[in-house]
């Protein structure tokens, strides 16, 4: 007679070391094997969309910062672009350059957190701190520019709150030179480590068709092997002026679209961001950054959807304006939220340890998932 076994339900989170915030996963286990995963959200829900309806358009920006708090600049840029599209504002060229520099620095910072915490989930503690040391340097650059380290309120509708600090360009160039060897170091320490490869390669394989059907965006989509980057495919700001590549997952150590591919796309993206920053720092023109700021943000009636390539994926804002000072409806298209939908699909039949790895590799931020 076979032993009678029953499934065990394990609650992972909302307070758990590696659920990246307050995500609760309900795992159905058979021993170490995961049969089913049910994510539960909402622990960080703070009514962003309802708040927006009571704010004027510029007042929304500090709230936008708090969506994906690891990439606040990128969120601001998306919101600013949406409102500029709604109001038909052309921003000066210097503003565009500064925005690109900031957003790319932010992309590096966000990826550093993603890579570091991914390593931490796998069990490597040290690369996490190396990543954070480098990230702190980026945050210091931001602090120099706008005075805040995480929630900047820097990119405004039609311009910027401050011009660059006189030292910024020198320091940014120094940072680029400083950071280049660190990517190689991270690769040697973590990416090519045999244990790390064993843990991530062939784990959580996301086929391309499923990724597109789930509308996965950002590095997670590119890890599945498609060159889809809004900076190239649907250019906004002045990204068409720069020369950079889009890394895609090649299945170096396993199938295309596994955790390692998703991870490595981020590493290569950091290098490409460095290239963009270098070009932008060389080409940046002189000019006034506040000239296009509207006196009164009162867009015409209409609906608009604009989007940018955030570090986590495609962030979009759908704004319904009724012609008043307050937006009638602001709907966020949060990349983390959409990317998280695929978790249940990916985690079927893997180990508990793999759930952690998969969750880390799709890189979610609960501030954005729950809003």
């Amino acid at each position, binding site marked *: 007679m076979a032993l009678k076994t029953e499934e065990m339900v394990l609650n992972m989170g909302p307070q758990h070391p590696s659920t990246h915030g307050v995500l609760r996963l309900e795992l159905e286990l058979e021993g170490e094997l995961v049969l089913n995963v049910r994510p539960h959200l909402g622990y960080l829900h703070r009514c962003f969309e309802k708040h927006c309806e009571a704010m004027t358009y510029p007042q929304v920006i500090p709230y936008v910062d708090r969506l994906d708090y690891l990439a606040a600049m990128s969120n601001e840029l998306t919101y600013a672009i949406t409102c500029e599209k709604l109001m038909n504002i052309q921003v000066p060229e210097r503003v565009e350059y500064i925005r690109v520099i900031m957003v790319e620095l932010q992309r590096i910072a966000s990826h550093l957190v993603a890579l570091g915490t991914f390593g931490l*989930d*796998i*069990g*490597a503690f040290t690369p996490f701190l190396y990543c954070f040391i480098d990230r702190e340097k980026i945050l210091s650059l931001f602090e120099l520019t706008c005075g805040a380290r995480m929630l900047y309120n820097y990119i405004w509708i039609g311009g910027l709150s401050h011009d660059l600090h006189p030292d910024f360009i020198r320091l940014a160039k120094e940072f680029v030179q400083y950071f280049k060897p660190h990517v190689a170091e991270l690769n040697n320490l*973590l990416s090519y480590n045999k*244990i790390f490869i064993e*843990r991530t390669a062939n784990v959580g394989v996301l086929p391309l068709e499923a990724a597109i059907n789930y509308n996965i965006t950002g590095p997670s989509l590119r890890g599945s092997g498609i060159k889809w980057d809004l900076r190239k495919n649907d250019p906004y700001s002045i990204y068409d002026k720069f020369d950079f590549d889009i890394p895609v997952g090649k299945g170096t150590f396993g199938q295309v679209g596994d955790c390692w591919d998703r991870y490595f796309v981020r590493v290569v993206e950091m290098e490409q961001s460095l290239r963009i920053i270098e070009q932008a720092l060389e080409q940046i023109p002189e000019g006034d950054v506040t000239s296009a700021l509207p006196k009164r943000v009162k867009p015409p009636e209409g609906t608009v959807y604009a989007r940018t390539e955030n570090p986590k994926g495609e962030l979009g804002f759908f704004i319904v304006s009724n012609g008043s000072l307050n937006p009638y409806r602001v709907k966020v298209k949060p990349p983390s939220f959409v990317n998280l939908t695929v978790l249940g699909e990916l985690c079927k039949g893997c*180990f508990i*340890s793999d759930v952690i790895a998969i969750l880390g590799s799709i890189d979610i931020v609960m501030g954005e998932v729950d809003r």
Partner: protein
Amino acid sequence: MIFDWLSSLIGNEIIAGIICACLPLFLFILPFALVAVLMERKVSAHMQDRLGPMRTGYHGIIQTIADILKLFQKEDIMSNEVDKPLFNIAPVLTFIGSYAAFAAIPFTSNFIGTKLDLGIVYILGVSSFGVVSILMAGWSSNNKYSLLGAMRSAAQLVSYEIPTFLVVVTLITVTGTTSLLNLSEMQTGHFWNWMILGGPGLNLTKFLLIPFMIVGAVIVFISTLAEVNRTPFDVPEADSELVAGYYTEYSGMKFAMFFLAEYANMFAVSAIVSALFFGGYQSPFGYLGNLLGVSWLVPFEQLFWFTLKGCLFVFVQMWLRWTLPRLRVDQLMTLCWKYLIPFAFANLLIVGLLVVL
């Protein structure tokens, strides 16, 4: 040896035995655990470009003492649903397991708890005692994370006994002894007499043995690392998956017991590796005491070398911990059954052939 001396001094064998048993605990394990915890924090901190504890004393030297005091004061939290007797006894048993191993470890040529002829076998035996207590802790906690951790731990410890023992058997074929004291005595003289360099004597076999001894040392180091649940083999307590594994529910002094046992274990396995392959308490360069003609200096030198070697291996364990990611459960088994055991077997065969020839 020290027991004989003590019993003749006091005249009562039981008291002498108790004193003899307590000596390593108070003279060695507790101070070592204190130093090792601080060392772990400092090593990890400096590897990560941090400073580590800096406030209590010069560069945080007395931080661990402060921590111990804090742990003493902590409330002993126990949920209603735990299996109380098992829950209480598990940390004590864990500590006993690791402490018992010290009985057969030769600290110097004079100081060894008991001169067992089967010393190494005894150590391997009692160290697997830990499985029972870990299973106890995991089961009695009534926590799913603890249970998973305990299950993983049991599978892991049982598996990794095998490569360890295979390497030990290899050494037995070379040396013909299972007593750690005899093994250490054999490797006296200079470092070229160590087992890692083929053992004592100077002949062709010695040089042929060197590569296989190195392989054996690596295998035994990896498998003992796995036995003490250190990264990359810390799946039972994998903090990012199972919160803290089998001791999730423990707090205060009970938690400290697990902690202490872990560090005591770390030193025990380091001592085994050094006794098996790196000459145990033997100095690599000969003794100053012999040179100067003051023979009482020799045991102290031996203790110094023994501690140094032990600490070196403990440092390597820490170094590995702060470098490597963690293996998955099935990969842990793969590493053991598909890599370590075949290699250890092949090693055993080749060394056996070499010895016969």
